[in-house]
């Protein structure tokens, strides 16, 4: 973990601050895309990519390689995504439908009014998480690779165990 930017050069306060502002906005946009996907352009895949772009932004600004979201590594994201989408499929089986067959939920909910969503939503959430996980994994590994290749020569402890 180093300070400074991955592509060299000095830190730019303007870039840092604007990305800090944009980061959460872009994340919200990605979640929006995830939820509207059923009826409008978007969906889990697109939403995941947008969230991935947010991670990139933060990485470029701060050179912070590790982790996508606080406390969630790429393993957790991919695993959780796979779990959610497969559980969706199995739940449909348990409900008497075919594997991954979709269903419709439509009900009057206080405050929100009529809420309607289908079985594809949880599945799409799984897609979203796996895509974010992939991008987090790439940034995490390739990004950190760059970090260490710069600090490598300075730190003698890296000479151990690196014979392969």
């Amino acid at each position, binding site marked *: 973990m180093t300070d400074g930017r991955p592509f060299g050069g000095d830190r730019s306060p303007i870039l840092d601050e604007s990305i800090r502002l944009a980061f959460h906005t872009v994340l919200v946009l990605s979640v929006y895309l995830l939820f509207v*996907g059923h009826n409008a352009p978007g969906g889990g895949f697109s939403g995941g990519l947008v969230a991935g772009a947010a991670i990139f932004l933060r990485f470029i600004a701060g050179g912070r390689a590790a982790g996508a979201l606080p406390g969630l590594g790429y393993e957790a994201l991919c695993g959780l995504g796979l779990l959610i989408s497969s559980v969706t499929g199995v739940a449909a089986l348990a409900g008497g439908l075919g594997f991954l067959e979709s269903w419709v939920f439509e009900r009057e909910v206080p405050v929100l009014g009529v809420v309607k969503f289908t079985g594809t939503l949880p599945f799409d959430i799984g897609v979203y998480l796996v895509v974010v996980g992939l991008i987090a994994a790439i940034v995490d590994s390739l990004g950190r690779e760059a970090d260490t290749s710069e600090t490598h020569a300075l730190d003698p402890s890296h000479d151990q165990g690196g014979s392969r």
Partner: protein
Amino acid sequence: MTLLILLHALVAVAAPALGRVLGRRVFAWIAIAPLATLAWLAPKLGHLLDGGEVAETTTWVAGLQLEVALRLDAFGALMVLLVSGIGTLVFAYAGYYFHERPDLGRFAMLLCAFSGAMLGLVLADNILVLFVFWELTSVTSYLLIGFEDLRENSRKAALQALMITGIGGLALLAGLVLVGQQAGTWSLAEILADPPTEGAVVSWAVVLILAGAFTKSAQVPFHMWLPGAMEAPTPVSAYLHSATMVKAGVYLVARFSPAFADVGLWRPLTAAVGVATMVWGGYRALRQHDLKLVLAFGTISQLGFLIALFGWGSSKLLFAGTAMLLAHAVFKASLFMVVGIVDHQAHSRDLRRLSGLGRRLPGVFVVASIGALSMAGVPPLLGFVSKEAGFVGFLDAPGLWSSVVLGGLVVGSVLTAAYTLRFVWGTFSTKPEVADPIGAEVARPSRWFVAPAALLAVVSVAGGLLTGVADGLVRPAARALSVGAGEYHLHLWPGLGTPLVLSAIAVGGGLVLFLGRDGITAVQDRLARGGGADQVFHAGYAGMLRAAARITRVVQPGSQMVYISLIIVSFTVLPAVVLVGHLAIPDDVVVAESPFQVLVAAVVIAGALATVITRRRFAAVVTLGIVGYGVGMLFVVQGAPDLALTQVLIETVVLVLFLLVLRELPKHFWSRRERALKALHVTISVAVAAVVFGIMVTSLAARTEVPVGEVAAELSYREGEGRNAVNVILADIRAFDTMGELVVIAVAAIGTVALVRARRPREDVEVPPDRGRSGAGLEEPT
């Protein structure tokens, strides 16, 4: 029956934990599984021996007609008796064989798991289920042979056994599938009731099935894994490699023989291989100094005998084979147990050093002698009675070849008698010429340690003397194979006829060979240059690895450029061959729908050209991005916002990825000197473009059906309740595909991390300074 197999699995799973608590006593506990099986079988035995059956079916994969169909008849009951009966005895024996050690729980687990797999194998009626259990016995056997996993020999032998039986297993699978398809059913009983015997497919299927049986039952030339398997602890040898697992191949031949003996090469192959195995195994047994190896080669020899008997397929020989199967399992298990006892007490199995054991351990001597006499075919033991039945069967079989086979079997029996004598003499005799003998000081074994072997010896005697009792088991079992085979009887005293003469020749000849053993050994030593089948196997294995390495060097040179070129060239050439004759242009060609499309296309083309021309990587990435965004624009123009969104996002992500990777790469592509290479790349690219364009144009012209898109759009709103057809297709209509793609993405994530990590020093693991690198214990030996 399914429950019994599950019980074995359950006990096996519990065994490691039990082993930690109970130590050696764990073997008494895991014996619950085979004992339960016997207890379950006991009340049904009468019904089964009267020709009844017990069947049970559990659906597994309904769509594939795959069901766990189990069926027990009298022959199966005989096998279950052997598997669970001898299993119980071996478990009891193992409790005395081992000294206390921490991994006994694991051993017990494997032994019990094997027992369950073997039980499933003999109960299975669905041949695919049979195959699954077949492979499970191979795998558990592999783990048991390699139990002493710190010894290199052990690992080597285990791997050899797995490879040989594994390859045979694949052949068996192919054979079973072919037979099953020809018969139109996977049920063993139905196939055997109405066997498909016509046609070349079945003749090949028969050879494949035999290949599986031969590898499993250690027939020449696949026999070398069995002596190697003697690396396993002796209870394993006594159980798997004499009485049960190696009988799997025999079992299969026995089941199929009544229906398929006349098909293709079945009879010639089983007869030739069986006789060759019997003679060769017996011959090799005469050279061994390790008692366990004497028995191992003896087992190979006896398995050859069984294959020859069953493979012939006539009723009389099926009956004889069934009797011999029982006799062999009983005497060979007891003899292996005796070797284990000797090894345990004397710490040696070398017959050149053991001396005076017979006087020191008279009880063991008696037990071993009974087993040995049964093996040699001496009256009044079960082995003699069974062998006589075999001789009678071949004497009565028509044709010249049956006499040739009989001759081979007599030679094999002579060798059998000879190595039996060698075994008994080698183990128990007092040899004054031995300079440094082991024997006189040996501690006497516990009575319970000898008891299982003694019990089996009693069975050998009883089976011979009380032929009526043995008959009661063997006749129904044989009848279950083939109705006619149940018509015969075992005879303790066959009368003064040819069979008795042949038996006399066998025993007498064996005695002569034994007395002239020094000469035999000398001759064998002179002949045995150039190494045995084992060396052939290892040389072949090493050669295969070398060839694989050489091929890998050619097809995997490590150059990404070569890989990509190979992939796209083959992707181009194959369709191009088809395309040449079928190129077509649709009637209503629309070049462009709007001027905007032309504009975007021009930008895309310009970007592509710039990518090829530029020598700087960074510029190439940017121009490639132009191509990608341009295609996204085309989607927008076409009215596909979702595709466009995805395309633009992907393009962005790829761009950033490139930037990350670019930091590690040189700034420029190549120097001007490599013009020839560049020309080649341009040629390949143009060819790919031409072929792809040709395919797209032709496929547009070839359309005969309504595009699936229209149906899907309609369907996605009606069925999927969504207005974004792309999303509904991905997440609903073809959600299963998407599921698979998700797995691919997750694997790609793991792969990326692993690839990058492979060339990066680990920083997240603290290495204790005092232990350093060597302390990790994970380094490969240099």
